[in-house]
């Protein structure tokens, strides 16, 4: 595991939770990310929108260590250079990621899914002789309540509906107790009603987590009522409150216009 000490939430000493500067990544000549800069303040809830291929997922990949940028710096909590770590380390540093298409461990029960996500030592030996403590149980119960799946705790995750999987995955993120959550299109394939519930859920979580949400769904963004960044062709096109951004002619042209 990484040597970096796990901090409490001393937001005030920290300028930015996540800081991207001049990041570029290209695949076979095609620039997925082009000189992208982004600054997420501690405790912030940030929505990122942009048409397909704007580089949203690639950005996520870079932050979580799945992809290395060609150039540019990616800093976590001011000091930590994320490009030097891999997924597992970054996760342990306190960055949780929810995938675009919900990925839960289908052949395990909801409870097990959450238990695996439960923050704590990730070593092989610990896993072999692991026993749940009382408060850990409570914690799991609490979260499963939070995502509203308590009744189905013992069912296989595979049996959940699309939307429920999304929630379970969010629940798993919370179990990891990250400081920063990257949430990729949580509302995809949800009914309007589910979408609203999800928005509420995220705002709830935002109380003590920093969150970056990527989403197309405008109603959802509205519901979040947060600062919005518009990506286009791998770089920031506009940034600000939704109403401001949506007034921006370029934005309208490349995105909202469609």
């Amino acid at each position: 595991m990484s040597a970096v000490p796990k901090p409490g939430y001393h937001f005030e000493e920290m300028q930015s939770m996540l800081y991207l500067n001049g990041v570029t990544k290209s695949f076979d000549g095609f620039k997925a990310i082009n000189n992208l800069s982004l600054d997420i303040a501690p405790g912030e809830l940030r929505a990122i929108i942009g048409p397909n291929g704007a580089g949203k997922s690639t950005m996520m990949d870079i932050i979580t260590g799945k992809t290395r940028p060609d150039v540019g710096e990616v800093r976590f909590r001011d000091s930590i250079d994320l490009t030097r770590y891999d997924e597992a380390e970054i996760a342990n540093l306190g960055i949780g990621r929810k995938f675009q298409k919900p990925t839960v461990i289908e052949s395990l029960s909801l409870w097990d899914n959450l238990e695996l996500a439960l923050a704590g030592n990730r070593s092989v030996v610990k896993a072999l002789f692991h026993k749940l403590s009382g408060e850990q149980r409570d914690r799991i119960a609490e979260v499963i309540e939070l995502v509203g799946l308590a009744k189905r705790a013992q069912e296989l995750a595979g049996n959940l509906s699309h939307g429920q999987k999304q929630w379970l995955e969010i629940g798993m993120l919370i179990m990891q107790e990250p400081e920063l959550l990257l949430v990729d299109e949580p509302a995809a394939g949800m009914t309007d009603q589910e979408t609203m519930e999800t928005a509420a859920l995220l705002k709830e979580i935002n109380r003590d987590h920093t969150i970056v949400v990527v989403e197309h769904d405008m109603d959802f963004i509205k519901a979040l009522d947060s600062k919005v960044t518009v990506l286009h062709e791998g770089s920031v096109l506009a940034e600000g409150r939704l109403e401001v951004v949506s007034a921006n002619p370029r934005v309208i042209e490349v995105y909202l216009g469609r």
Partner: protein
Amino acid sequence: MSKFDDVFKQSLIGRLLQSDRAGTWLLGALLALAVLVPFFNLVIPADSFLHLPTYLVVLMGKYLCYALLALALDLIWGYCGILSLGHGAFFALGGYAMGMHLMRQIGDRGVYGNAELPDFMVFLNWTELPWYWYGFDNFFFAMFMVALVPAALAFVFGWLAFRSRVTGVYLSIITQAMTYALLLAFFRNDMGFGGNNGLTDFKDILGFSLQSDGTRNVLFVLSALSVAGAYVLCRAIVSSKYGRVLVAIRDAESRTRFMGYRVEHFKLFVFVVSAMLAGIAGALYVPQVGIINPGEFSPVNSIEIVIWVAVGGRGTLFGAVIGAIVVNYAKTYFTGAFPEVWLFMLGALFVISTLYLPKGIVGVVNQYRERLAVKNSANKPQELSS
């Protein structure tokens, strides 16, 4: 009574088997065999029709070794999604370690009466024992090597492969390359492992003649107990949190990474454990069949192991054991009964089982049991509590 009963229930095995009917069956059967087979073979007089001929003892012993091997594979394939097409290599290495010990046991009773060198070295004009044969005259060293050699290979191989995230077919194919390379290497007489003939003409182990029925039965019992032990071990592993991490890796590897688990470490550990089990299986196998040769490395053998597991039912442990025994029994029976056309039947068996029993034999049984359960639950629900 009930006091002892509680003790049993508290014991690790008891706890493990609570939720594992099949496991209880299996262990019961294995222990029963461990008692009965020697009884029917040694105690019952040879002329009685209840007498169990020795060749069947050996045959069943062999099946159990295969069962152990299948168990080892199911642990990594069924629960961690690592499809090794080279598991025969670990089996063979364990076998060779044991074979080398048995070879040294022959001592000066070889045809050339050379105390130092095995016969095949003598008539190929080897003058002295190669260094890697040192120590194998010591039983405990040899047993140590039985587990260590496969483990070491698995560690190096796994460390490389998992670190650089070689997965899926790529992994399968390079495991195949591994066993193929070893096959070619062991075929070379210059390697000093007896080339194509391998190691054979074994005499005795720890002073007991390998030909005697007594030794045969002991080996059989050992095999049965090893399978039982291995089963309990694997069950313990897969029902721990670690086991669930394995499943997580199998179902959603990158998710598991993003949860902060060092996937490569988890894979490596289980891979090494599995290799050790395979090695032990090989070590038990050799004294019972009386020969170990490079043929065991052949990729086809490794593929067959996969087939045993698939036929039995992947990811159930129990199924691996069933599959190994069923397929090998089928093989023994067909090759005897229909020598001309048995390959048709075996081939058909594989095709059909993949098409119609995707979950293997165990899967079918479970479906049947579920249907039964549903029916029962209608009239007497309390039965289900067990």
